[in-house]
């Protein structure tokens, strides 16, 4: 029975099926918001209000011809999208969605899981870099190099900003951090700076405007994805979509008080809070122009990282006071 339950967790909720369906919904939500911010309509004709458009795009990509460039490293080129998807699906397991209650924590909640989640979230970046590198095309290589350059920029601020709620809650366990903030919702206001740093860093991790430098279409064609077609590209799209869900879930857990209640109410809270985060990400996407790689690195080291340290100091002060 326990095994069946585990399989249910892994494959249906909150595992594979739920993540794919929900991430496609999030993509639709993002596209629709982005379009409305720009006074457009967004997806319209597939399904009700274009709800099925992301799924249709994915199906289309899956049915397309699959091309491996002659000079590319065939094994790596083929394996990387699969690895990436596996990693990102694994990382979703650590979100405290369904077993919030501390008495019934599942196998996947343990002290320090926040570190594991951040670690797993940073791995797809490496996958993207390798994918660009092993495509061996000019544009892919430049894209890959840009991915890794950017990675050094935003990863430290992300870690700093996510750590400060953990320090405040005095725990390295996501479920406990969420529970702490549910008990003291007033303390959420301490982490406002951290919240915005984390938003910016997540935006960079998802490679969206203003940080869409690695696949800047007008500069280096498709960047990392230049050589990818068909199913492999579909995998990468899915990776980005799920990464968006997991990343916004992480932010919602540590900065917005997690997902309280039982299996149903936590599900509803999860939807509301992640959609809120995604909405903010869409606004950021619409309000800025793409930065140059040197400007991005300067921005993250001169602005984001000092702000992150400041956030930690504030947290420590508050912690000492109370």
């Amino acid at each position: 029975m326990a095994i069946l339950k585990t399989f249910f967790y892994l494959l249906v909720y909150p595992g594979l099926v739920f993540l794919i369906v929900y991430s496609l919904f999030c993509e639709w939500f993002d596209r629709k918001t982005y379009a409305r911010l720009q006074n457009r309509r967004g997806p319209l004709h597939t399904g009700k209000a274009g709800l099925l458009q992301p799924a249709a795009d994915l199906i289309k990509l899956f049915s397309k011809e699959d091309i491996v460039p002659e000079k590319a490293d065939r094994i790596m080129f083929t394996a990387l999208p699969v690895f990436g998807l596996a990693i990102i699906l694994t990382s979703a397991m650590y979100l405290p969605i369904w077993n919030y209650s501390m008495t019934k924590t599942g196998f996947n909640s343990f002290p320090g899981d926040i570190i594991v989640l951040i670690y797993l979230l940073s791995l797809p970046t490496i996958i993207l870099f390798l994918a660009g590198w092993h495509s061996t095309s000019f544009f892919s290589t430049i894209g890959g190099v840009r991915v890794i350059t950017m990675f050094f920029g935003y990863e430290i601020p992300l870690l700093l900003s996510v750590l400060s709620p953990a320090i405040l809650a005095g725990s390295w366990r996501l479920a406990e951090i969420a529970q702490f903030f549910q008990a003291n919702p007033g303390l959420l206001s301490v982490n406002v700076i951290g919240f915005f740093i984390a938003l910016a860093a997540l935006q960079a991790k998802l490679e969206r405007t203003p940080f869409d430098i690695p696949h800047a279409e007008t500069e280096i064609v498709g960047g990392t994805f230049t050589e990818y077609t068909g199913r492999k590209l579909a995998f990468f799209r899915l990776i980005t979509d799920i990464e968006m869900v997991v990343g916004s879930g992480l932010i919602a857990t540590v900065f917005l008080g997690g997902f309280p209640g039982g299996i149903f109410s936590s599900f509803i809270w999860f939807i509301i809070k992640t959609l809120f985060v995604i909405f903010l990400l869409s606004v950021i996407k619409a309000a800025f122009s793409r930065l140059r790689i040197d400007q991005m690195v300067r921005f993250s080291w001169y602005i984001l990282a000092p702000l992150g340290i400041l956030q930690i100091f504030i947290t420590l002060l508050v912690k000492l006071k109370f």
Partner: protein
Amino acid sequence: MSITIPIGPQHPALKEPISLKMTFDGEIIKDADIRLGYNHRGLEKLFEGKSYVQNIYVTERICGICSHSHTTCFVNGVEKLLGIEIPKRASYIRMLIGELERVHSHLLWLGVAGHEAGFESFFMYTWRDREIVMDILEESSGNRVHYAINTIGGVRRDIDETQRTRILNSLKILKERTDYYKNLGTTEPSFVARLSGIGILPREQALSLCSVGPTLRASNIDMDVRKDDPYLAYDEVPFEVSTADTCDVLGRTVVRIKELFQSYNIIEYILRNLPAGDIKAKVPRKVPAGETVSRYEAPRGENIHYIKSNGTEKPERLKVRAPTLANYPATVAMLKNGFIADIPLIFAAIDPCICCAERMVEVKDTKTGRAEIKTFDELKKYSRDFYKNHKKIKKDTVWPF
């Protein structure tokens, strides 16, 4: 270590085919080389085989954005050869369409600059507001892009009272929006960071490389054909030449925004002082022998036509130099020592119109193209066969799942 990367002929940053061969050292551009010739239609040879009337419409098709500039330039030249004066109202209407075209071209450029800098919202907003101008143009000329309002000896359509008030009302909205974009384009930190300080073209270099239009004016040289060599009735219309002294892409943006405001004022002046009278003079079909140089300030810069007639219905020689071609040497100079990320912006900053610049050669592809034309059924059969063979050869490339 430096690597050479082809940007184009097909590249998302380029809306038309051109090949830029770039040599990079890391993210820095070390060398750039431009190769033209992917968009040739042999227009200059074609002009020699068509009559003057037909050539109005052929010159119109040199470019899709500044179509009116080319026809006006051509028609002005032919009228000079004929030695006739066109009615005042006709020249005012020509100017009106020309300025509306400038507005639409500059708004389009602003959007393109936003798109190249990854600022999609800006792109969407400016292009949405550009539709206002497009609607005006469609209403007054019958088409959104190829206005075909010029004819030798005048214009083909008149502006009536309802159109006049409609344009004046639309101008108010446009002014308001342009004012907003002016603030947005010069205050949004991420956008300004992308535009300022890149694509530097010092004053002396701009002069020696013979660049034209906003590229030149952004290097603080007040050269504008409308002021220097007034054609139509530009000597009657008050306006200023817009310049900037930053010599970079931000300067070119500022020049274009300033020009937008100047154009709004010119349009308003034209509509308020539209003289009454005929819109077309009677002209003979044959043009007496002679030669003339006709210049026009297109949205992208100086446009020059050299017309040589031989007394028949057809021109002996019609040379067209579109502004984009004049700006290529400057572009190469601007690209050097920039970042990869700046290529689309610097290249877009001259507002390249590749089909304008390349209009000379008879298309060679038509010769080989003959063998390539296939019916749809043939194509289907070809693709089926291709995949049959393809699978046999490369079975191992199939996705493992």
